[in-house]
């Protein structure tokens, strides 16, 4: 049934609304959220499998045929990201159960987590560029609430920056859409793509594409990341992990979608620009990651490095590079959430923000320490963990395309990732214990469960790379051949 592909967005929305009525009943809210997310995970898995067997699925809302109506399109790329995003949300929510506190749970916290997920999944699934904007707004509105919930001074300060920068970028987004609509008279992404390939990508269209590049660069933190480290260190740990895992990824997804499906004719301008931006992001992110002693800043700069790395795949535009980018996107959603959760927990148990004020944590929390070690190796790309296969494939693609500078930057940045996290590990986990066993804050079961699940997922993605290969290859094939997507939408 085609209606299935609206559920990853519609289900979280309806659950979020129901939770508003259940405001005083926190336990019920938690149960409904978990059940709803598990159902969504099941549905997303089913969608991924049926896209793989039966080809791209589409749903025309209200029965309006494309290109006139709004539609959802699920190809393998979207389906993979929806699945991973929902899993990450579930795990961050489990962490939130025992960390977020009654006060925030009472202020519609779970509703807004559900709305956030709805916006994220909607952005991944939509096939209409204005609807993409709307889904971005749903996601951002939920994130505005989540970033400010709790109302600490730092949160208020950072949220003003965050809201302003996102409103400005959304305005640019709207302007870009208006330019596009003025030139082509359609908003359906497949139809836009078809019209451009028929009439050629005129200089005006290329300029419009650069407007989109700026918008998505702001949203994903590609070089224009100045707002990111501050905003991602302000909210509570569970929310920061959700942001780090999901929000920039939506920007990356949109950039990959727009520059593979619509603006792929003038690659010497647009993709060169993306390549330069990605390279600059890798350099600046690497410098940022080693420049700070505040753990949350370091972790936030690691997000930025990953953005640069994934978009190297888009800049070189080969099948292998896209496969690598998709693997790395999946890996990064999982690993960055885990990293944010671990960093936030370190700050909770020690009460310190700088790693040089912590020491000897591994004696107090051995399992916790080793999980930090594992995520560090995974982010650095050590096999058999999940970061490895993505890095290899992006590297392979870069070699094929002859972009040796990007290749070098991408791999040197991995060393910086390793160094920045190793510094945290050596300083805060080794050495003299500063927390005596009597003062030790015990790690809650919910925390360990969420860390454990994410660590297991990293192993699953790393060791089971072969199992995911056909899905990823299918997704990369659709990205390389936009005609497949267009045929599924318009000529079906």
């Amino acid at each position: 049934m085609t209606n299935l592909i609206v559920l990853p967005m519609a289900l979280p929305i309806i659950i979020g609304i129901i939770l508003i009525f259940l405001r005083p009943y926190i336990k019920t809210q938690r149960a409904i959220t978990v059940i709803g997310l598990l159902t969504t995970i099941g549905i997303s898995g089913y969608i991924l499998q049926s896209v793989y067997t039966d080809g791209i699925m589409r749903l025309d809302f209200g029965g309006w045929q494309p290109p006139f109506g709004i539609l959802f399109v699920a190809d393998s790329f979207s389906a993979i990201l929806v699945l991973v995003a929902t899993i990450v949300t579930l795990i961050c929510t489990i962490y939130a159960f025992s960390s977020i506190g009654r006060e925030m749970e009472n202020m519609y916290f779970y509703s807004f987590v559900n709305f956030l997920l709805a916006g994220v999944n909607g952005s991944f699934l939509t096939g209409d560029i204005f609807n993409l904007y709307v889904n971005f707004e749903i996601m951002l509105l939920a994130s505005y609430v989540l970033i400010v919930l709790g109302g600490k001074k730092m949160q208020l300060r950072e949220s003003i920056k965050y809201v302003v920068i996102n409103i400005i970028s959304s305005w640019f987004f709207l302007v870009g859409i208006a330019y596009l609509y003025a030139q082509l008279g359609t908003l359906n992404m497949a139809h836009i793509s078809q019209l451009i390939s028929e009439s050629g990508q005129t200089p005006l269209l290329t300029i419009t594409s650069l407007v989109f590049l700026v918008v998505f660069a702001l949203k994903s933190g590609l070089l224009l990341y100045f707002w990111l480290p501050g905003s991602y260190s302000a909210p509570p740990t569970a929310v920061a992990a959700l942001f780090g895992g999901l929000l920039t990824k939506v920007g990356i997804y949109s950039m990959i979608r727009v520059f593979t499906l619509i603006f792929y004719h003038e690659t010497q301008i647009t993709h060169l620009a993306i390549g330069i931006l990605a390279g600059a992001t890798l350099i600046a992110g690497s410098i940022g990651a080693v420049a700070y002693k505040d753990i949350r800043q370091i972790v936030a700069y690691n997000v930025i490095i990953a953005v640069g790395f994934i978009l190297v795949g888009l800049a070189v535009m080969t099948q292998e590079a896209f496969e690598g980018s998709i693997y790395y996107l999946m890996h990064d959603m999982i690993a960055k959430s885990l990293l944010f959760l671990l960093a936030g927990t370190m700050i909770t148990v020690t009460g310190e923000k700088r790693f040089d004020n912590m020491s000897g944590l591994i004696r107090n929390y051995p399992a916790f320490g080793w999980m930090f070690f594992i995520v560090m190796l995974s982010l650095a790309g050590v096999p058999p963990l999940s970061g490895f296969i993505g890095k290899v494939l992006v590297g392979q693609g870069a070699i094929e395309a002859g972009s040796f500078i990007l290749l070098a930057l991408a791999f040197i940045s991995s060393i910086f990732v390793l160094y920045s996290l190793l510094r945290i590990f050596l300083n805060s986990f080794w050495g003299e214990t500063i927390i005596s066993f009597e003062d030790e804050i015990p790690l809650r079961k919910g925390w360990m469960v969420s860390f454990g699940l994410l660590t297991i997922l990293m192993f699953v993605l790393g060791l089971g790379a072969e199992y995911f290969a056909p899905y990823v290859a299918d997704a990369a094939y659709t990205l390389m051949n936009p005609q497949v997507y267009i045929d599924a939408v318009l000529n079906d």
Partner: protein
Amino acid sequence: MKINNVILRTVTKLVVFIILTLAVYLFFAGHNSPGGGFIAGLVLASAFVLLFIVYDMETIKNAIPLDFKKIAALGAFLAVGTGFGAFLFDVPFLTQAFDYFQVPFFGEIELTTVTIFEAGVTLAVVGVVVTIILSISEDV
């Protein structure tokens, strides 16, 4: 601060009903001509806001004991819920249906599922607008 503004209060008592009637008119007009759930919601909300301004908040909260946040949620639930109706009939999400019915006294009228959706929109708009204005006024 207590302002005894007799003229404003008397006028408001009358005007609120005119505004409410206009809101209902706009709501139903929206089906085929300018108007609709969103506009009706704004007009309805303006009636509530006028009441809150002219009388004090306590009086109105006693007279209309509604949690406007819940009203917004109820509206959103209705609007999304009509979408889910599509699952029952196995048609694409958000498909609308309409038919003509013979009703005594009124004659032939058109009933549509869009009206339910629009009612949801109206409630959501009323809820959100009033909640925003009330929370801003509480802040100061």
